[in-house]
């Protein structure tokens, strides 16, 4: 096995282990902390694919931003311990159905796709000191081919700003009471 394969399986174990811990923790805050482990693993997979920019974004935005957001949401919603004891009962059959569908799809990929569990290595290994290449490529493509989606992203962010403020605004009637 090549070093890329070993690293791939290492990150896969980190992701799966953290994900299982995320959904089985009784304490919601612990779940959010374990989610960080899964997100770190995904960032590692991006690095293995040579997508350094994406890996950086994964860490800065998802771990630095989204997880903090999750923790705030957990703090905003008072969760009783008793409410967490029946976590898996109500949606059990829907969950089983979804899991089977995903399993079938993944098995189809494993059976038809190459038939090898070896992680594909890049044809031309990057020369030393070319770590920023990926970010440069992202910059070039973003500002030429994907110009419209890029500008639309700013409108999406604007909508998010307005939505967040409008939803969290206290109404006049509420502040008076």
């Amino acid at each position: 096995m090549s070093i890329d394969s070993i690293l791939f399986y290492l990150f896969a174990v980190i992701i799966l282990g953290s994900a299982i811990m995320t959904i089985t923790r009784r304490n919601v805050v612990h779940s959010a902390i374990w989610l960080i482990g899964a997100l770190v693993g995904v960032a590692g997979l991006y690095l293995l694919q040579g997508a350094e920019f994406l890996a950086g974004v994964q860490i800065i935005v998802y771990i630095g931003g989204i997880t903090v957001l999750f923790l705030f949401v957990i703090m905003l919603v008072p969760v009783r311990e008793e409410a967490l004891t029946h976590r898996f009962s109500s949606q059990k059959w829907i969950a089983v159905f979804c899991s089977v569908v995903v399993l079938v799809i993944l098995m189809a990929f494993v059976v038809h796709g190459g038939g090898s569990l070896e992680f594909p290595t890049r044809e031309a290994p990057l020369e030393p000191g070319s770590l920023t290449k990926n970010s440069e490529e992202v910059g070039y493509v973003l500002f030429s081919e994907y110009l419209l989606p890029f500008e639309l992203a700013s409108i999406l962010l604007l909508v998010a700003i307005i939505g967040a403020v409008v939803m969290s605004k206290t109404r006049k009637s509420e502040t008076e009471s």
Partner: protein
Amino acid sequence: MPRDYIPILIFVVVAAAFPIVTLLVAKLIRPSAPGKTKLEAYECGIAPETDTRGRYSIRFYLVAILFVIFDVETIFLLPWAIQFDALGLFGLIEMLVFLAILIVGYVWLFRQRALKWA
């Protein structure tokens, strides 16, 4: 490629080992005197009145989501900055349009006094 990340790996190992080693060393050298009072939540010496999971102000959420939004905005600045020379004036104008749309939101935020903590 993985060889380039050995310094980062060293950082990760040191960062992970530091709390573990600290806790282990502390456990070895400190005297052990467990007590029920020590496990209780400390609230300035007063017995805690409510659960820790009280409801927090929605403003925390607002600040967090605005942080994420402007975080993403800053992320978009990075590829532009790296390719600044290659993109030239066209890229600059594109970025200004991008920023202008977001600054509209930022000005609106201020006009709404959404960031005021009162």
